[in-house]
């Protein structure tokens, strides 16, 4: 039995979270000294058998109360700011990222790389690059937890959630499901393998011959007949999808929505929900006809139709 004390740290973010965590540990120790130092001292000094001064207090308790309300208030506000700063970073992936798609289901993680490689309960990533996970679930809520990067995000059915990391250390680490999801919850685990970039390239190539997601998406786009409407030649009046990703889209009801992964997903499955302004409400729903993986492929294809947006922007690592 080993005696590990601290988890391995595999990203800059992990180091930052550890720093804040250790600060909080120090704060906890200080608070305990402040509270229990005097308490233990009083317990000895003022035991009922002791002869000591027990005359009533002569100072106003109000001032004392204010001191121990205001000082902790300032302290926790500082902690709040620090913690929120990290959180905002955790939520905003840099723009230039390798996007890996993850589908959770009872009880496995199905993972798809942009190059088309698929894996189950394993996630291979190159060291040093930003990796963004776009995740959804096929059934119940799961949670994609990578302790080495100190990140965790629930994975929901019917929605996309994301998390990102930039690994700094080659190695192989735990991947857990952290949201209780049924009988085999504790077996819904895997490994994340952080590799040298060229090993990663090799790994991608070695996989069985696969087709990049964009290409699979394009095929689906034809087969399902999406291209029948969403194209220049079409008689039907449907929005062209070139360049749509990452742009605000005006809706019939007057609102604007951002065309992100979720918008595209919803447009495929629940087209009646958000009608683009100026277009008739004629798109059929593809709900039940597509697997989550296929939806990811379509989304990848549509995203690829806006090459400018996908590459622009220099996110901070």
């Amino acid at each position, binding site marked *: 039995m080993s005696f590990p004390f601290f988890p391995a740290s595999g990203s800059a973010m992990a180091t930052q*979270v550890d720093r804040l965590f250790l600060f909080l540990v120090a704060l906890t120790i200080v608070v305990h000294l402040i509270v229990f130092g005097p308490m233990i001292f009083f317990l000895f000094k*003022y035991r009922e058998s002791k002869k000591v001064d027990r005359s009533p207090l002569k100072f106003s308790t109000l001032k004392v*109360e204010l001191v121990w309300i205001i000082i902790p208030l300032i302290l926790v506000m500082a902690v709040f700011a620090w913690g929120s700063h990290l*959180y905002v970073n955790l939520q905003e992936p840099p723009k230039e990222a390798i996007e890996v798609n993850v589908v959770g289901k009872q009880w496995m993680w199905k993972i798809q790389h942009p190059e088309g490689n698929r894996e189950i309960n394993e996630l291979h990533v190159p060291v040093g690059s930003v990796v963004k996970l776009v995740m959804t679930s096929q059934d119940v809520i799961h949670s994609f937890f990578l302790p080495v990067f100190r990140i965790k995000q629930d994975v929901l059915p019917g929605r996309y959630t994301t998390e990102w990391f930039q690994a700094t250390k080659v190695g192989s680490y735990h991947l857990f499901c952290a949201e209780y999801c049924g009988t085999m919850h504790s077996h819904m685990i895997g490994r994340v393998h952080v590799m040298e970039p060229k090993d990663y390239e090799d790994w991608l190539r070695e996989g069985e011959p696969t087709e990049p997601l964009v290409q699979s998406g394009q095929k689906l786009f034809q087969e399902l007949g999406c291209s029948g409407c969403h194209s220049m030649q079409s008689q039907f009046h449907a929005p062209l999808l070139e360049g749509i990703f990452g742009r605000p889209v005006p809706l019939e009801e007057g609102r604007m929505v951002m065309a992100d992964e979720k918008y595209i997903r919803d447009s495929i499955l629940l087209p009646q929900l958000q009608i683009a302004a100026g277009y008739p409400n004629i798109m059929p729903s593809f709900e039940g006809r597509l697997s989550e993986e296929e939806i990811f492929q379509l989304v990848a294809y549509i995203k690829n139709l806006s090459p400018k947006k996908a590459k622009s922007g220099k996110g901070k690592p």
Partner: protein
Amino acid sequence: MNAAQEFNFSIEATKNYLNVNYSVKSWLFTRDHKRIGLLYLFSIIFFFFIAAMAAALMRLELLTPEGDLVLADTYNKLFTIHGVLMVWFFLIPSIPATLGNFVIPLMLGARDVAFPRINLLSWYLFIFGGGVTLYSIIIGGVDTGWTFYTPYSSAYSNSYVVMMVVGVFVAGFSSILTGLNFIVTIHKMRAPGLTWMRLPLFIWSMYATSLILVLATPVLAITLFLIALERLWQVGIFNPALGGDPILFQHLFWFYSHPAVYIMILPGMGVVSELIACFSRKQIFGYTFVAFSSLAIAVLGFLVWGHHMFVSGQSVYAGMIFSLLSFLVAIPSAVKVFNWTATLYRGSISLKTPMIYALGFIGLFTLGGMTGIFLATLGVDVHVTDTYFVIAHFHYIMVGGMVLAFMGGLHYWWPKITGRLYPEKMGQLSALITFIGFNLTFFPQFIAGYLGMPRRYHAYAAEFQIYNVLSTAGASILGVGYVLPIFYFLWSLWFGKKASMNPWDARGLEWQTASPPSQYNFEQTPIVTEQTHAYPLLTSEKTLRKVMHVR
């Protein structure tokens, strides 16, 4: 009933609430708040031990990483039983329904609670709810966890979810009725002269608790009802496959369950205030601040539910607001801890059993509270939520805090309840064992949690084993600490020294009547002329008034 007959041996013929009547019927149809308090006491101890058996099995299972003692499915049912029974059938009713029922009218100088029949009804609802819940366990159990997260519970779980949800639903009505009863009692039944600023701090905390019980519990009822709707009739509420929203459930659930955490801890704070005052023979330092901090906690407690959902996919801004408010709620809790410590200053302290429990409470509650700061801190919570860090945190608050306060209060009022003194040395010993066992059980879980061990895992990665072994060892010690009092309390009923009216020389109206009290509590209604905790070593009367004046 047996218990009543047993008392017969020891308590002499003077009529009190225990020996006015011995028939089973007189207990089952009693409207006496004291007897109802005892009915609750037996019931919650029963549920506690079933829930504890489940915990013991879980801890044995977790001795080894492989998950070889019970099947995964069984383990999942065990933690559901443990969580559901501990939360709804032990923690929430623990202090309010037992000690609260017993002492609130006594402390107020009243004959009974405002609605004695409703009080009895709420016990029956509680028992009925508990019965249905146990039945759902016997016929096969539920594997959702006490949080019932959807769509797992509403669409995927292949277990008796609806039945258990009905049990909890019914028990919820018992909470609401108890809360209403206490609010009206505290408003209407105070003895002449017992103004709000003279009330014992226990009453203040029970008042705040009752507000939460009444306002939050209906939301739980609705939420549980919606689960049943979706499960039975496929109404799309939470399951996206039916057009529902899985996050909605979490909002509803935590809108009840976060305030419920304060239902579980505020009464403990109230008891501890009584104990600290009595055993250091002083009014609590900053009485008004402590009183109002209970209300502040109750109110702010309604605004922080989203801190259970930082990684659920809610918006970043929602996360930040919930984090901010969570830090604010920490302040009134801190105020209490500082004031308790300051009360000891220039006190006259005796380390009787209840006092040891109270000091233990402060210790464990402080660590539980500080780790709450970790969880409210967004960047850190992302890593530790849904791990053993959280398990350790809430056990520190709820078990370390609430159960210690409950035990402290039970020892403190035991002479009043039974007319007998428990053996002091045994009491001190079991308090100590509990404290040590508790820390050994739950402290290692903080480390396992930060290492990344997720909760609700029936098998786990080998590197976490050492912490689980420590934890299981601690649980065995803790178990001794819980069982020991049962023996010496029973012993005291026959062999304990007879208690006088006021064995601790405590202040408060409950000590100004016989032990055990007569059926109607007081010979004549007491008249109150001073602060309830007017111990001889009062924080100077002048400063007290000054504080109250400034408010």
